[in-house]
């Protein structure tokens, strides 16, 4: 076949946006912030206490505290955005069939939105202090 060396005439529509650049920067910024959040999270829940002792009470208590609410929500959102964009890279790379890629992305992104919603609800729309009281009444004390 003859090759026509043309001016990059069909510069695709996508080309003129900075989306990719911004995501790239976001990956660094969010990563930087998360280093502290995630390592802190690990430290608190893995080193300070024995993970296998974590149970409802521990969680509920933690989730009643506004500071932790914000801390955890930040991790959730940043990690979700960061991880999902990372996964988008991976899916672009690994799933070469456009139809299949589209379908996978649709499922994955829906799942991600769902998880963020559930997570956010549990953090902000649920009054754990009430639960805790209830639990204390019905079960007596909640063993650590």
């Amino acid at each position, binding site marked *: 076949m003859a090759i026509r060396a043309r001016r990059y005439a069909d510069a695709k529509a996508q080309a003129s946006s900075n989306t990719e650049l911004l995501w790239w920067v976001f990956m660094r910024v969010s*990563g930087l912030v998360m280093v502290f959040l995630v390592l802190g999270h690990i430290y608190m829940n*893995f080193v300070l206490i024995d*993970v*296998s002792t974590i149970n409802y009470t521990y969680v509920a208590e933690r*989730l009643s505290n506004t500071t932790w609410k914000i801390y955890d929500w930040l991790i959730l959102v940043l990690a979700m955005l960061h991880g999902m964009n990372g996964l988008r890279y991976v899916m672009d790379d690994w799933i070469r069939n456009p139809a299949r890629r589209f379908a996978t992305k649709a499922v994955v992104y829906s799942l991600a939105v769902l998880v963020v919603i559930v997570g956010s609800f549990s953090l902000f729309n649920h009054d754990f202090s009430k639960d805790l009281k209830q639990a204390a009444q019905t079960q007596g004390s909640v063993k650590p």
Partner: protein
Amino acid sequence: MYRGREGQWAFFLHRISGIALLLWLLLHTLNISSAMWGPAVSNRLMLFFHVPIFQVGLLLVTAAALYHSFNGLRIIIMDFTGWGIKYQRQLWYGVIALCVLVAVPGLILTVPRIIHAATHGGAQ
């Protein structure tokens, strides 16, 4: 198989650890959020996740988190400094060393706990 060097393996590990973290993040969020449905549901789920195999998995995910964070920092350094690129190999070995450095005390701390939990049928 292509005989890539440090950079290639750094990338493969970064990607795999990233995916692992994401997977764990999904499970973890759902797990923790289950508290919304009260202690019964929540504790059952958490107990389920406390079986030893998940505990070992959790160790791996933690290792992944360590590697991904440290290597993430390496990537950021390379992206914004000239020396980061020049010493990328050394930096990677630094990342591995840091991971080991943090992981060893971590393991010393957590492995006995896991064994204890496994042999005593859970923490409760």
